[in-house]
């Protein structure tokens, strides 16, 4: 297959393979938009995922800013409560399903074949299908905002009967769009598993794989296990709304709580789907910039696996306040607390990796360090929430909002940003602009903490989430949160500037852009990585221990 971009230095292996020629090779690549519509190349599809995710990140961010604008001071200023509900709901849905998940899938697409020495994903056409389902799904989801009665307004967890009996007519479209997004996720995950299990370079054992690959292997398993459950539960909603079934209607013998059990059986593994690949990225970055090998590789793998197993056994901790037999509360409480053990192993290993390392603070490392500290804060508030009797107090307050935003924004999103800064030299051949990156980092850290840290206090003091107005005593906390949100939101424009500048030029990066301690296979190909790499599999050599 001929490269579609101007000739670039290619790996020895890839050029020989290209010349050896396949029956299918040497088609002229399509031009313009068709190139992106029809592509089967993992790097191009990865880029598509990342651009899509960034776009949706801004759309979901605008929704969040509408929420924060309304909450800037008490009283109703800017939007009607009905619209406020749509904004909180759409912010959550877009960020979870259209920003964070596709960002990790995009990184997986770009990096997994490079990290395991594969020529592409195992099933390249399916890969393209997984991506192009996303614009369809989220175009449909966003269009519900314009429909009569407005878009989804029941929170991103769409509890029945709020999302069935009392939902706007557009809910059916919301369900169908989520079905399409679910198909995309399942097919993408199948592809990633097949790639990791089947396409590794000769000689690379499972326990030789970079941790980003390991975390994605386990994440993909979680996706295949729980996305179908989400499909099942939204199908039951669809039936209740349109065909008069009684799944979530006690009058017919069903149970609204059944919805919550099914939703959170999906939902809890889902939150690990959004954090495990982040662990992988951080586990790549910290050793590179500490100039040491990762401490405790094997324990990292086992910890991720343990977290994944436990994720199936803890969904009830989202439902303590709903009503559940005591034995259920105890089980879910202790199972949840167990998760702190493997998570603690990971945090310990990251810190131990840095211990007596020769640390430097390039942008990827800054974001990775912030990740470790702030994700741990989110983990600790999670432990507080896991205590069933305490949760009765915290439930549905801003304390919960603070908790999951700490694990998702300075957690998942900082890891995505760290990964982007880390691999931008490999993608573009240029280093990101140092000064702009530093501004981006510091404004983000300050903005994030100004936004979410006060929410711990307003939550503990009893401020309920998802309500457009609040009592006067919460005014100062909310003012700080809103200021922080706008700082964080607008500073992300700097990230766009960094990317644009990096694509167009900047300091040239060599193959091993971050020095000799970054030894994964992606650093053995030139920067920027040629369109086709590892067409002949490299022989993997185990680093000497």
């Amino acid at each position, binding site marked *: *297959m001929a490269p579609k971009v101007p000739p670039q230095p290619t790996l020895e*292996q890839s050029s020989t393979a290209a010349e*050896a020629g*396949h029956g299918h090779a040497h*088609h002229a*690549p399509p031009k313009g938009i068709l190139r992106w519509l*029809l592509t*089967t190349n993992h790097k191009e599809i990865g880029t598509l995922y990342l651009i899509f995710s960034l776009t949706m990140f801004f759309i979901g961010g605008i929704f969040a800013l509408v929420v924060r604008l309304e909450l800037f001071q008490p009283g109703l200023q800017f939007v009607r409560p009905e619209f406020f509900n749509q904004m909180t709901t759409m912010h959550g849905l877009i960020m979870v399903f259209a920003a964070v998940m596709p960002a990790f899938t995009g990184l997986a697409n770009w990096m997994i074949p490079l990290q395991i020495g594969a*020529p592409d994903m*195992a*099933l390249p*056409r*399916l890969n*393209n*299908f997984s991506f*192009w389902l996303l*614009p*369809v*799904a989220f175009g*449909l989801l966003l269009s519900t905002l314009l429909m009569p009665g407005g878009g989804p307004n029941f929170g991103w967890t769409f509890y029945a009967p709020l999302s069935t009996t009392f939902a706007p007519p557009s809910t*059916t479209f919301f369900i*169908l769009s989520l079905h*399409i997004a679910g*198909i995309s996720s*399942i097919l993408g995950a*199948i592809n990633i598993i*097949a*790639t990791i*299990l*089947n396409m590794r370079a*000769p000689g690379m054992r499972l326990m030789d794989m970079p941790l980003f690959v390991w975390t994605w292997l386990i994440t993909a398993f979680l996706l*295949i*296990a729980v996305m*179908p*459950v989400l499909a*099942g539960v939204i*199908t*039951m909603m669809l*039936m209740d*709304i349109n*065909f*008069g*079934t*009684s*799944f979530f*209607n*006690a*009058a*017919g*013998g*069903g*149970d609204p*709580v059944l919805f919550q*059990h*099914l939703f959170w*059986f999906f939902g809890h593994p889902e939150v690990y789907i959004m954090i495990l690949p982040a662990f992988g990225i951080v586990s790549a970055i910290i050793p590179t910039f500490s100039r040491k090998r990762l401490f405790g590789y094997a324990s990292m793998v086992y910890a991720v696996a343990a977290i994944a197993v436990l994720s199936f056994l803890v969904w009830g901790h989202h439902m303590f306040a709903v009503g559940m*037999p*005591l034995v259920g509360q105890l089980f879910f409480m202790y199972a949840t607390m167990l998760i702190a053990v493997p998570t603690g192993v990971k945090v310990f290993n990251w810190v131990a990796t840095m211990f007596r390392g020769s640390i430097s603070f390039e942008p990827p490392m800054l974001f990775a360090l912030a990740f470790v500290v702030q994700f741990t804060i989110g983990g600790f508030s999670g432990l507080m929430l896991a205590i069933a009797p305490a949760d009765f107090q915290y439930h549905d307050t801003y304390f919960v909002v603070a908790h999951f935003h700490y694990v998702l924004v300075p957690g998942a999103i900082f890891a995505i940003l760290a990964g982007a800064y880390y691999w931008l030299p490999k993608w573009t051949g240029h280093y990101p602009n140092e000064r702009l990156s530093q501004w981006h980092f510091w404004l983000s850290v300050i903005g994030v903490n100004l936004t979410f840290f006060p929410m711990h206090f307003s939550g503990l003091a009893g401020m309920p989430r998802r309500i457009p107005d609040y009592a006067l005593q919460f005014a100062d906390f909310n003012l700080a949160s809103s200021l922080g949100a706008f700082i964080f939101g607008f500073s992300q424009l700097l990230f766009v500037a960094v990317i644009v500048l990096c694509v167009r030029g900047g300091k040239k990066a060599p193959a091993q852009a971050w020095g000799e301690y970054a030894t994964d296979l992606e650093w053995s190909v030139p920067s920027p990585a040629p369109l086709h790499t590892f*067409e002949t*599999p490299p022989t993997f050599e185990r680093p000497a221990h």
Partner: protein
Amino acid sequence: MSGSYYVPATSKWPALGSLALGVMMVGLGMTLVHGRGTVVMAIGLVGVLAVMALWFRDVVSESRSGLYDAQMDRSFRWGMGWFIFSEVMFFAAFFGALFYVRTFALPWLGGEGTKGATALLWPEFTAHWPLLSPPDSSVPGPAQVFSPWQLPLVNTLILVSSSITLTVAHEALKEGHRKVCRNWLAGTVLLGLCFITIQAVEYYEAYAHYGITLQAGIYGATFFILTGFHGLHVIIGTIILIVMLARVLRRHFTPEEHFGFEASCWYWHFVDVVWVGLFIFVYVF
């Protein structure tokens, strides 16, 4: 292993497939919400089916022209295996709903346990299964439910036999007896069609004589979502087997290389196992 892994250059089917699926979903939504949109839905469905047919045709012709190696074969195996696992989890959601309702929700509605306060809503309600009289009188329950030892038992025997006949066909293929394979595969397709017909008769009976409808409380809801999605899978499986029959007739398979056929077998056995679960938990107990 040297550079033989086939990476298709470009393909228009995925993008067209996404478009068609989107059109179909919009049409379905329009039909459900506004009561008009069946034409849009039909166009989308035809598009989806056409894209699937053409995409598979490309894969078949690539396979037959020898572009796939052993590694590609393993990619397909992993892909199909994990796809079936996702289907297992899809059905697990519905089985989970059934178990939850029967074990927890209904007894609680009937006043059992520490959460029995819900009995205040419908004090006369007593929990039982099958639930013939739902808590609220506004929801009509089924008049009666099916005896498992009539049509459902027949269907069980048919589907279990079809797994056996399919295995015989597969073994014949591996031994190179193409005509034997053809005959047993055709028999499997016939059994699949019999199952679908009997299921259709049962659905007719459910609505006409038993009062088992989608609106008949939680019994009707779980009954139809489980048997309905299973029936849909049998229909898809039968179509797949018909395609395999056509490919056997065209001599597409060799005793060594026939993963399309094998994947169809996997799928069919999976559908069979789901039915056994259905028979036990929906009909018998």
